[in-house]
């Protein structure tokens, strides 16, 4: 058995009568790039929100790094080592670029309120180290020289990168990327693809992403999971998933005959 980092066991999330995620099982091994795809409204982001603690699934369990994280608060889950980005970029827009990254380091800085007021040598040392690390992260994300700009003033592509840099500042084991290339042109998408690979190779991260860009998904993923109507409908290597008739049906629509049959069952 390979080294499992994330083991989601049959979780279910309901909103009133709507079941957004239904009995989804998902395993991610350490060092993988895993992708989650599916048509709009398939429950992908809800699934992410369950993993990061925004929602608590009614059923099932989520085991991360050997321990269950189901029911933990978001900040506790972040401390366990899961960081994420958002589909619609959610930066702290009124703070500078470097401050955004420093917020990401919050859990690694130990300064107490009293220490902050007295500016103890320990606090200064921590701050200096944190700033150094933040600058290094900004360099890594291709944001060198932009540290003192307001995050809200960055160009779109840079905002995406900053969001990732901020997530990296947590020093996570698992990085969840929610549509990292949304709104990007093909060239930017290619760059992002290279960047995601570098994340895995240079930072030893496990990456789990939601993505609509099939070219990107199929070329960088080790494992692809497909969701539709809240269910997992297929899983496997990119090649396997691409050939799976269920996936083709979900994406391209069913033939007239199949559709008729489906209507009959509904």
């Amino acid at each position: 058995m390979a080294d499992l980092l994330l083991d989601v066991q049959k979780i279910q999330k309901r909103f009133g009568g709507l079941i957004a995620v239904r009995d989804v099982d998902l395993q991610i091994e350490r060092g993988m790039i895993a992708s989650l795809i599916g048509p709009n409204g398939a429950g992908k982001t809800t699934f992410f929100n369950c993993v990061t603690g925004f929602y608590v699934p009614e059923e099932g369990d989520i085991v991360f790094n050997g321990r269950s994280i189901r029911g933990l608060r978001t900040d506790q889950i972040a401390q366990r080592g899961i960081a994420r980005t958002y589909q619609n970029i959610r930066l702290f827009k009124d703070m500078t670029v470097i401050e955004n990254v420093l917020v990401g380091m919050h859990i690694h800085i130990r300064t107490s309120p009293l220490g902050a007021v007295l500016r103890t040598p320990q606090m200064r040392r921590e701050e200096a180290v944190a700033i150094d690390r933040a600058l290094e992260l900004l360099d890594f994300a291709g944001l060198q020289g932009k540290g003192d700009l307001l995050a809200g003033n960055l160009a779109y592509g840079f905002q995406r990168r900053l969001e990732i840099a901020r997530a990296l500042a947590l020093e996570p084991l698992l990085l969840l990327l929610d549509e990292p290339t949304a709104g990007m042109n093909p060239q930017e998408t290619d760059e992002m693809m290279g960047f995601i690979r570098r994340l895995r190779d240079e930072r030893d991260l496990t990456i789990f992403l939601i993505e609509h860009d099939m070219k990107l998904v199929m070329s960088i993923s080790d494992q692809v999971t497909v969701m539709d109507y809240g269910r997992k409908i297929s899983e496997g290597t990119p090649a396997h998933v691409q050939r799976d008739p269920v996936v083709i049906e979900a994406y391209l629509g069913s033939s007239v005959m199949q559709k008729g049959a489906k209507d009959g069952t509904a």
Partner: protein
Amino acid sequence: MFHKNTLRYPFYVTVVIVILTLTGIFSTFESREVLEDYLTLATVTLGLMIGVSAYVTALPMRGRLIAVSVNSLIGVLIPTLALILIVVLDTRTDLTFVFQRLKDLNPGTLTSGKIVYLDGGGLLSPLRDLNFADWITVPGVQLQGFALLLLFAVVVAGFVIVYIHFSRQWRTIIFISLLLTVVLSLASGQLDRILTLPDAVMLFTVFALGYFVAFYLPESLWLRTISGFSLGMISAGALVLLVNNGALDAGGVLRGIGSVPRILQMSINGDFIVGDLSIPLSVFFILILGVIGAFGALINRAPRSVHDASLYFALGLLLLGILQWGDRFRVNDTILGVEIIWNRPEVGILRAIIIFFLLCMAMWIVPRLSIRAEKTFLRVVPVQRHQTQFIFFAISMLVLLIAPQFMGLYISNVFNLIALYTIMGIGLNVMVGYAGLLDLGYVASFAIGAYTLGILTKPNILTCGGADPATLENALQTCTGVMTFWQAWPICVVFSAVTGMLLGVPVLRLRGDYLAIVTLGFGEITNRIIKADDFKPLFGAASGITRIPSPVIDLTRFDEGWYAQLNNSTSIYYLFLFSVLFAAFVVYRLANSRIGRAWRAVKADENVAQAMGIHLVNTKLLAFGVSSAFAGLGGAVFGASVQGIFPDSFTILVSINVLSLIIIGGMGSIPGVVLGSMILIGLPELLRELDDYRLLSFGVLLVVVMLIKPEGILPPSPPKLAEKEQVIHG
């Protein structure tokens, strides 16, 4: 020629003017003179309002003279005609039946009958003798009063037409200068005792001398300091010689107009005695000028904000001196052998014109100098920057420490009030500005601080161990629980902080409007509790807690003479000063640490902040606690300074005031809070007569600031963390 808003804007302004008129603003303002015998506040207000109307109407047409003229005429005429309509209506029916404050309304009073006349023999002097009040008794027949009003409107339109063609920068400068000139003229009654003109000119000149000489000096910290210092001392030496040769006597060169200069007088008068030592005051005089010269020389290389603030401060001193001129002048004066006759009103006009031009000049030149200073500052190595900052800090502290010696009781009192609201503003800023928790019940913590002090420092059921102090003889001795101010002070702060956090617990999940409403409730509950008769033994119900002992600094065990009771506004000033500095220091340090970042992250996006590992409950509770602690500090100092606290001082108005000053000053910015409380608290104190319109002007100011600068007048500047790092490495 016209644009789509040609009629709309004047109409809006008209509505405002009509409402203000009906509430009697002109009748109130008429009795307040801006320039003695020449200009009343009513005229200024009217001019300002129809001027604004003309300006906004004509602005889109800028560059086309005829269109601008037509539009600004429309802009002034619509509101003016509306006013005339009200006057006519008022003569036909009794409007005071509905609008009780509307009285004596006639076009003459609106322009105060004065704006157009100059002194005897002037072009428009015939108008002076017309008695407008009689004219409108037969409406429709004699309309001279209306003619005058229309003439005034046209004059305003003419001014706007010229004004609009200045560049944007100059328009701002002129407008702000005009506004400040009016404010200074209005406040001159309170401000003119601070500094005499010769003193002011002397201080300013020495400062400027140091400043401009340093332009040509190489960038050595010590060279600058020493040359500025020696320049100041040389000037001082020259002044000492002059003064000792009679320059301060009546008619002397330095006496000028007005009373005997206080600072300059140090150069002849008496000695300063410490123990057996007696030092001539002239030595101090020379040292003071030396320090000022050095300050001027160093300011050249200060960080931009410090540089600008210092320059405007120096200008402020000069203006204070000018304000004194004309208050206690003598009718005949001989300067350098020329006999000059001054009349009070003329001096007033001259003074206003000088102030206006000085302000214009300063606002034009300071930004230019400031760019220069910043370049120098950035060239300097970081170690020297720290030294420079330290020197500035030391000098500003010195200024703040000796300030009450010049301010007098009334101004110190105003200052203390500003300081009180600054403390609370800094505190509330933690909640609202940093953590984004809208608290409308801030007064609760303020009240808790004040009442804790009142209870702990007075004999009552708590401090007397359950006994009723009224039944005890010699309660002060028997009640062992009674504390001094200094013992009670930390307890007030801690107790406020703890209650603040406890109040925070149930509302942690609430955001925005909901939180605001719940906290509003807290404020009211606190007010009801301290008012309630059930708690009379402790809180005193409606009669409050009176005769709270004032803080005493008792160091007699070191020296017999070291005993001070902080019982008037100039001495309690130091307590306020210390508290402001303390609050600013703590909040500044917190805001620039991971805690401040966590607050701001929570404000920006609570969910994302939590996903970054930030513990929401702790972070928010800390904000509640810190914020309440400073409200408690403010309350304790307030209680000690007024020596009597009553439930009426702790109403929702306090919360609203503090919140407004944060919003106007700039959320999350400490200088913004200081500026905000100066504008919202200090200004109304100096312009006491406008008290009735205080809330109205608050509202107007809030709307204007929200429209023009939603982030506040002095928004926080983002820290330059990345750059700082580069400098250290590079």
